[in-house]
């Protein structure tokens, strides 16, 4: 069956090649040797990079922001200027093919299936939500030999040796880092001695809640309760009443906008919790709108600290952000920089492995993946990227904590940089 599929691909490609009058020669031996073959880009055809981000629904601000980062990266590539011209590799335009992942396993499957239909897709930037990737999109792309590079998946499970897909990488930080920073902030800065966590069962929220709980207990704090909730309910007040019986000082609920907003409201109304905290899933003005400004005031939110970018802060402030603002308005999330980096390491790897054959370009798939995993000391916007064998390209990350004042996010009130290993 593998063979027949290959035959079909070859047949289609040759037809396309004939139809377009391109005159590429035979297939280079690198392609024949490659388990997944090559992507062959005929003369005049673009190099296609897929994106699989959450671009509809209540979490769309997360994905649209990353999509903007990817588009800016394609713009900047080659001419090193945000001038609206699309970057090129060996005379081929770089084209983004955007799909939606809906922030769910089903959405991830559907979007991924659609992208793999296009055999010209070289690599995919995504997903936004860990639930769309874990065991779903990573597997579908991995089975086709397509690398998946996520700008904002942070669930530890995605890069756990046991569950890591060989074609999966990410430029987002691993949440073991974020959980540790929030725990450090809670116990040292706030002086909280006890905490409870809520997550919604998504790999992102669960991973973060668990990482926080582990670090918090290690720092000497007490975790009174860890519960998960059902998304989509209209009332969490009894769950909060239940949690309050354990008497935690801090309630940490690193979930998404809708439930995050409601729980913020009801926790404020409940009045038993001294501190409330969430993370990047709620780091958007939408969450403040959902919670109500009065309720959101004083809640702590963590996320990557872009003011402390280990990379070129000057470039970010003076070139990247203005270009972003001009086309897309104010950023609605913090992952555009990670997305920018993701596209750049992918394009760099393509450039490294592509075989030029006249005007035709051959990109061997396995070689591309290997080149991506070999990324070492890449000077990125978010810092120096080095990908390890499990796909984590951020070996350390700066995580900041903000609070809400008068219905707006404050400047960072706390910031710390931690490495992946402890």
């Amino acid at each position, binding site marked *: *069956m593998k063979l027949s*599929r290959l035959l079909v691909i070859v047949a289609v490609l040759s037809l396309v090649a004939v139809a377009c009058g391109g005159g590429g020669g035979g297939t280079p031996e690198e392609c024949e040797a490659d388990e997944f073959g090559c992507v062959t880009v005929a003369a005049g055809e673009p190099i296609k990079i897929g994106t699989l981000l959450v671009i509809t629904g209540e979490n769309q601000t997360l994905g649209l922001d990353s999509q903007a980062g990817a588009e800016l990266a394609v713009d900047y590539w080659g001419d090193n200027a945000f001038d609206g011209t699309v970057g090129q590799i060996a005379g081929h335009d770089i084209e983004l093919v955007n799909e939606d992942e809906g922030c769910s396993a089903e959405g991830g499957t559907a979007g991924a299936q659609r992208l*793999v239909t296009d055999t010209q897709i070289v690599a995919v930037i995504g997903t936004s939500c860990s639930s769309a990737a874990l065991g779903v999109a990573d597997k579908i792309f991995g089975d086709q030999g397509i690398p998946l590079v996520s700008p904002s998946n942070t669930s530890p499970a995605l890069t756990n040796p046991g569950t890591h897909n060989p074609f999966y990488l990410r430029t987002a930080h691993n949440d073991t880092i974020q959980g540790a920073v929030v725990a450090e902030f809670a116990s040292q800065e706030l002086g909280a001695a006890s905490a409870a966590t809520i997550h919604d*069962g998504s790999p992102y929220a669960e991973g973060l809640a668990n990482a926080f709980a582990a670090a918090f207990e290690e720092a000497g704090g007490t975790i009174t309760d860890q519960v*998960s909730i059902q998304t989509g309910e209209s009332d969490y007040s009894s769950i909060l009443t239940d949690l309050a019986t354990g008497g935690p000082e801090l309630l940490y609920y690193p979930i998404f906008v809708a439930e995050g907003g409601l729980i913020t409201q009801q926790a404020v109304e409940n009045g038993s919790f001294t501190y409330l905290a969430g993370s990047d899933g709620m780091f958007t003005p939408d969450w403040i709108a959902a919670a109500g400004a009065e309720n959101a005031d004083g809640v702590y939110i963590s996320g990557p600290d872009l003011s402390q970018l280990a990379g070129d802060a000057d470039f970010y402030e003076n070139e990247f952000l203005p270009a972003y603002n001009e086309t897309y308005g104010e950023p609605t999330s913090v992952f555009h920089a990670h997305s920018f980096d993701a596209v750049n390491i992918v394009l760099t790897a393509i450039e490294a492995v592509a075989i030029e054959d006249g005007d035709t370009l051959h990109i061997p798939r396995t070689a591309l993946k290997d080149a991506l995993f070999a990324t070492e000391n890449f000077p990125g916007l978010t810092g120096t990227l080095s990908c390890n064998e499990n796909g984590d390209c951020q070996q350390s990350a700066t995580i900041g904590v903000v609070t809400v004042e008068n219905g707006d996010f404050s400047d960072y009130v706390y910031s710390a940089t931690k490495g992946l290993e402890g």
Partner: protein
Amino acid sequence: MRQPQAVRAGLIGGAVVLYLGAVGMLERFSERSIIVGLIRFNLVVMMAAFFVFALFAYRRATGEANTSLGTGITAGTVAGVTTGVVVIILSLLVDAGVDVRSMFLRISPAFFEAITLGTNPYLGLVILAVIGAVMGAAAGGFRRLQPTPRTIVITVVGTVLLLGLGARLFIPMLQGLGIPTAWLYRSDALTILGAVIVSVLAVVIRLYLQRKGGFRKALTEVPGVTPSNVRPILFALGAIAVLAAPWIGKQFVADVLGTVGLYILLGLGLNIVVGYAGLLDLGYVAFFAVGAYTVALLTARSSSMVGATIFDLAPEPLTNFWVALPITLVVAVVIGILIGAPVLRLRGDYLAIVTLGFGEIIRVLILSDWLKPIFGGPQGITEVADVPAFGADTNDPRVLYYLIIAFALISLFIAGRLKNSRVGRAWAAMREDEDIAEGMGVSVIKYKLLAFAMGAAVGCLGGAFFPAKLGVANPGSFTLLVSINVLAVVVLGGMGSIPGVIVGSAILVGLPELLREFGEYRLHIYGAILVMIMILKPEGLIPDRRRALELHAEEPHESVGPLTAAATPGVQ
């Protein structure tokens, strides 16, 4: 000339166009070209709205107005002017600093651009009025056309819309057939030349077939085809199309058709419960979930199950799909009976809410922290093994597609056999009047449980393929919406009708998948279609023979009194 009906239809038409703008559809559709540089989809939709409401005006108009071109022109112009005037008012409001968008989010610059076709509101009013008048006149003219020119118009419009909208489906298909597409499509829209060529081709073919008296007749002119074997030949052609579709359209088409196949399985199962036996089940997704999770538990790499450490399992699947399948059937039947047993005494809507409750209970349990060690919580069970199929690579959705088609055929056979048998008659009697069926010797308990069990068995087949198709089983796939979808497939197709299930699945499941580019408006359009079809064809698209008779039969000759109506408290 006073034409109140025309004015009224026009006003409604204008309101509809404004509605489409206010919900953002026109804006979204303006991103989609049908013919490069000539027609965008938003224009098509607006023209269609003007045209349809002009036709509507004729339907309502009487006497002279019913034939005069004036009716259509009035209706169309009123629709266009209404739209234009409101757009001007809105733009004035925006200019005056009223923050319309704080409430109506889509009244953005892009909205004005889409609805005025890229001009300004004042010019837009003129353009809209002109388009309205032209479409109104076209509607009037269309009514007067002779059949042949009418066919030509319909064919041209239909072909261009179908090929234009389906570009992302047809391009890979054409390429799969080895046909170059550059002449026909440019950046997912038809080229002008391409549109002309395909229109002419379509018209020629259509007229040729018409002259020959239809496709079948035309087919008999092919050497070797006779009227007697035209049926099997058509059938064979259909079978070849079904079998070849995924190769021509590649993975995506195979994936969509596979999903349609799954819904055919689910629909056939629910059809037994609702259509045959008359038990309104709103929790049918339970069996889908049971099938999926049983297969997933048995065939996933067990290290992906959280409980693997508890049960000390080796990190490999417990068994393969073909062993898991019969186990799944048994589990589903048992659960079907367990769910059926307590609700035997409940009727109609009480049954509906309780089955809905069971569906929710099952979904919540597989989602819960409590049973997470077994079912994996929200992320479900990952790394489900592929279906081993004679050494083929089932990772390829095409192979799975064939398996699903094969099982759908088996289920079709089962459903057909059951329907026209002693068992099927007992169900039908029970559906019509439970008391009397019991009086005629039908054991209502036994046949209700049998219906639940058979429904569960067929439905779990759909479920069984689901994780194999997705590679995971997770609770997000087993929401109430699935139950509703399957019920809609059954009712829309025609209750109790087997071909109805196939058509219902194709329309309600296949079409939305293909129209994925409408993105957030998919469910919006889906809802509207559901309402429209049910109002236009309450008996379903392909009604069961008996039901069609029933709905169109004359009233009984003498009144049978209210008791007959009250005597059928079930689903009827």
